[in-house]
């Protein structure tokens, strides 16, 4: 397929090649009071993500999922262990290969949807007009046609999240890191957005890590699900999801294979 984006197409697609590698990663936050022990958010995390694989990180609230994602994104540094993304082991290098999408859309209220989507390109030094020209065709492809000029306040929650995702995609990085992208949406919109994202990831294949607390969402979107324990977060289970993406929500709900996987994930979570 022809892509208007800088898709990472240099290497041939191989299932064994690891894009993201974490080995013995620990992250601790200093204690609030001096005599307390530091708070361990992550402890001994080992994880690999293969090229063009979509990995879902599932875990209870406060287990360090978001911390893990920010460490990979190069927005934080690990206190122990090795983190590398496409061979870049330092935080700055990881920031260069990863595009990070936070929980909230964080769209700029003074820019229209197109201008918001173009923001990441502008940060790389592309002039505004040119960045907007490159963003425009994506609006058509990802169900946002005719909303180019709308201000964020005029968009629904789902629409805002789509714009935020386009902005992430337009960063032109080979690795996508999505932190609970649909946590703020209502159940119906979330279901719709899960299928939309599954389609978008099939259309623009990337190596992706998606943090979620929703096992069903993980099974719809991911090739593999890593289950984290409660704080300090460790990987307690890794489940391969069979069947090709994109998957429909209804299929996932009806298929006994997925039901069994959901069962195993819930057990690993201790539910």
């Amino acid at each position: 397929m022809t892509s208007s984006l800088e898709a990472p197409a240099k290497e041939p697609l191989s299932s064994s090649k690891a894009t993201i590698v974490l080995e013995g990663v620990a992250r601790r936050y200093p204690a609030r009071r001096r005599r307390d022990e530091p708070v361990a958010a992550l402890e001994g995390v080992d994880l690999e993500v293969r090229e063009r694989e979509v990995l879902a990180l599932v875990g209870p609230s406060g287990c360090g999922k978001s911390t893990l994602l920010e460490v990979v994104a190069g927005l934080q540094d690990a206190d122990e262990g090795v983190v590398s993304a496409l061979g870049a082991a330092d935080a700055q290098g990881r920031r260069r290969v990863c595009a990070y999408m936070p929980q909230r859309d964080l769209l700029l209220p003074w820019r229209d949807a197109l201008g918001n989507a173009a923001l990441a390109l502008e940060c790389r030094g592309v002039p505004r007009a040119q960045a907007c020209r490159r963003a425009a065709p994506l609006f058509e492809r990802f169900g946002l046609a005719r909303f180019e000029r709308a201000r964020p306040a005029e968009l629904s929650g789902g629409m805002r999240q789509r714009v935020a995702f386009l902005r992430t995609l337009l960063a032109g990085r080979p690795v996508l890191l999505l932190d609970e992208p649909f946590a703020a949406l209502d159940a119906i919109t979330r279901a719709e957005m899960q299928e939309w994202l599954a389609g978008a990831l099939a259309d623009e294949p990337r190596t992706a890590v998606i943090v979620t607390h929703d096992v069903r969402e993980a099974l719809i979107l991911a090739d593999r699900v890593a289950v984290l324990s409660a704080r300090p977060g460790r990987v307690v289970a890794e489940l391969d999801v069979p069947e090709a993406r994109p998957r429909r929500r209804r299929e996932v709900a009806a298929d006994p294979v997925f039901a069994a996987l959901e069962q195993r994930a819930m057990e690993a979570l201790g539910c």
Partner: protein
Amino acid sequence: MLRRRYLLSGLLLLAILGIWQAVASLPGVDHLTLASPGETWRALRDDSHLLFSNAATTLLEVVLGLAIAVGLGAAAAIGMHLFRPLRDAAYPLLIGSQAIPVVVVAPLFVLAFDYGIGPKLAIVALICFFPVTVNLIDGLRSVEPELVKLMRSFGASRLAILRKVELPSALPYLFSGLRVAATVSVIGAVFGEWAGADRGLGRLVLLGINQLQTPRVYAGVVILMAMALLLFAAASLLQRIAAPWSRAELPA
């Protein structure tokens, strides 16, 4: 809605005028200290040329002084925002500057810079600098840390974060500061003129007091109030144009 607001403001104004007229008509009230609304209106009408030509001078002082305050305030706020040591060092001085008694330093400014417009601009700018700078610093710091993190992940430079995220976010705060500054700026100009001037509404009011032309003094004060209101409205209007995503209050 808007109509109702104007109606209510008008009614309140009428009530105040009524009370003012009633108090002024009480027996035993000295007309040298309290001019009635009617006398004030006659002074406004009869001396309109004198009043408005002097008001133009004062308005010029106020607008230029405000512009200087915004320019210096913006530079100070951005500098203090970008360089933490500068903020730590300069913030106490900034607060201290607000405690400088303008009434006392105004004559010194006039001594130093002569009778012209210079000392008035310095005094207006001195008064207006504080609300502009403090609000802008708060605005620059109001940006959500998450958003700064996102920009960093996009590889944005410090300057790009300032230009694309922090300055636009701070605009509504800047206009809040500007609205406060606009109202106090008029007082600054009057103090400047009291310390020594050959024209301006403040000087006219001072002369009016010395010459016991009380209605003219009241007329001057009314114009000064109108001027503050006008500047406030102008700041709000400017905010609607420059930052339409934020909500600005327009005066009734």
